[in-house]
């Protein structure tokens, strides 16, 4: 499938934004500017962007604890996100959610989720709503290799298949769940096997290759929109940082991360592909890089100065709609 310029530039911009956002967050965390647990998506950008390129604001996605990339890919405002990570009142969740619970329902982003396996049932619900209300919309649940072993995830595969739900199960297999290897924790070594078990089409794709992810996801989304039920996609790749900030990563092979960054960077691959095929020029991409970096810098500058929530006003609100 030949992608047009707009899709290409938009996709590159989003992947590049995720990368720049995460690298900035990494630096900020090291300086102690950011509280809490932070899990970075750098290296995995092609998955979120390749999938979400097929979705609009009424299509829903459910994310994981590693949710920044999914937010950006789904169109969440980067400044609102950065403000949220700083715990500011003007953050996308008013500072009450933070990195592990970042969400923007207006963009169809139903939330990062700090409970591994918490998301797939919710995505089944989003898909059920689309099916019941006949909106033609779809739902996507992103889950890790570790999360693929959670019972809630597995029974959601069965439920989605039985109910023939318009949804995608995107399993982001980055090789590790915290420090545990997915080759060990996932019986049989690959998540793909589970597609057949629950009677749905399944695919494995190189997660460093935006074009491969984009194509497979596009077909799955179409299938879902046509009412033909769910699809399982196992995206294989690796993360560029630790499980969370502060992870010493001694469980990884020597030079593993360096090799990934050198030879398996979805951004480098993308640049090479589009420039060789003369779809976009290097200077066009450089221009995007510069714009993105400026946007991130300004998001940080705004966030540093922004106001915190006011306990007297904000602590007790938003528990219920009606009290």
């Amino acid at each position, binding site marked *: 499938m030949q992608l047009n310029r707009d899709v290409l530039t938009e996709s590159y911009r989003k992947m590049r934004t995720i990368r720049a956002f995460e690298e900035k967050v990494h630096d900020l965390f090291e300086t102690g500017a950011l509280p809490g647990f932070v899990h970075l998506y750098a290296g995995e950008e092609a998955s979120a962007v390749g999938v979400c390129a097929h979705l609009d604001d009424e299509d829903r996605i459910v994310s994981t604890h590693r949710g920044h990339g999914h937010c950006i890919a789904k169109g969440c405002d980067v400044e609102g996100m950065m403000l949220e990570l700083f715990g500011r009142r003007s953050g996308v969740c*008013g500072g009450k959610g933070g990195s592990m619970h970042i969400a923007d*329902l207006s963009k169809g982003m139903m939330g990062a989720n700090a409970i591994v396996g*918490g998301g797939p049932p919710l995505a089944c*619900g989003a898909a059920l709503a689309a099916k019941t209300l006949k909106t033609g919309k779809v739902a996507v649940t992103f889950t890790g290799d570790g999360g693929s072993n959670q019972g809630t995830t597995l029974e959601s595969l069965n439920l989605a298949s039985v109910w023939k739900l318009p949804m995608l199960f995107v399993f982001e297999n980055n090789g590790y769940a915290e420090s545990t290897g997915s080759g060990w924790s996932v019986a049989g070594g690959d998540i793909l096997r589970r597609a057949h078990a629950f009677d749905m089409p399944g695919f494995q794709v190189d997660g460093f290759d935006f074009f491969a992810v984009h194509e497979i996801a596009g077909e799955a989304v179409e299938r879902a929109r046509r009412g033909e039920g769910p699809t399982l996609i196992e995206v294989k790749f690796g993360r560029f940082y630790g499980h969370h900030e502060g992870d010493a990563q001694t469980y990884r092979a020597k030079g593993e991360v360096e090799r990934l960054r050198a030879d398996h960077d979805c951004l480098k691959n993308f640049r090479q592909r589009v420039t060789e095929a003369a779809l976009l020029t290097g200077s066009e991409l450089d221009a995007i890089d510069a714009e993105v970096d400026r946007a991130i810098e300004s998001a940080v500058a705004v966030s540093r100065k922004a106001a915190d929530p006011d306990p007297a006003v904000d602590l007790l609100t938003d528990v219920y709609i009606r009290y």
Partner: protein
Amino acid sequence: MARILTYRDALREALRQAMEEDPTVILMGEDIAGGKGAPGEQDAWGGDMGVTKGLWGQFGDARVIDTPISEASYIGAAVGAATCGLRPVAELMFVDFMGVCFDQLLNQAAKFRYMFGGKAKTPVVIRTQYGAGYRTAAQHSQTLYSMFAHVPGLKVVVPSTAYDAKGLLISAIRDDDPVIFFEHKVLYDEARDDVPEAPYAIPFGEANFVREGDDVTIVALGRMVHFAAKAADVLAKNGVSCELIDPRTISPLDEDSILESVEKTGRLVVVDESYPRCSMAADIAGLVVDKAFHALKAPIRQVTAPHTPVPFAPVLEDAFIPSPAKIEAAVRSVMKGA
């Protein structure tokens, strides 16, 4: 002219009317229609207690949705769908099964609105069966609403009569927050009242004064309201005047009504079928000794189940459940001020 319905029929009427008035209301659960994928009759069960019987016939597959045995995923699906424009009413057949799906309520439904800065709306209702007396033993007889009341973000409803069951379920379905709706399995048949046909909503957080009295306040929940009324009758004959309060919803709780009553009577007995520790009985006792201490003339007594699982043998189960006699004894003890 009276229109007597059972608790079961009143609940079904509430579901039917809510579905008629709002096309976004759907039902889901195990065998709530029944016969799915089976060769015989569809709508064969209507739920294991027959509460939803007939609704599939009226509303069809798209709105009365049977599920595989996967509480975590279908309860979670109800929660997720509620954030996407539906008003799902999911049935957790027995509340004892909460252990396989609690995360979707504890960490998802209850927290969305707060975690997402007030931007989420999750109008989901979980209907569930609770309580002892059915000889279904340790894993099918528990009274677990105290655990749900513990969780900020959930609303918890415990109707004691057919009239309240209908009005509170209609309110629960119209409510924009997650509601856990507790139905006592023994009341499906035992509770019968005059129930108006037209839909009506009973507001949350408004206790029902079952009877007025001056000497002692009794706060009772669910099936225990009926046992407390029995005890109050006996006590009345003996010159002890009890004020019986049924909170009807425990989260929110109508604290003012309870406090006002104790301000008047100076004595309190709380009757709760729960296990005793960290229970609603303790919750209400703790409220009153904080906010109405100076009115208290006697210790606050809690009449609850013992700190044991629910036994199978009928003689043991009958001894497990708080009885009118135990309630009467508790009232007498506080009347003595001892």
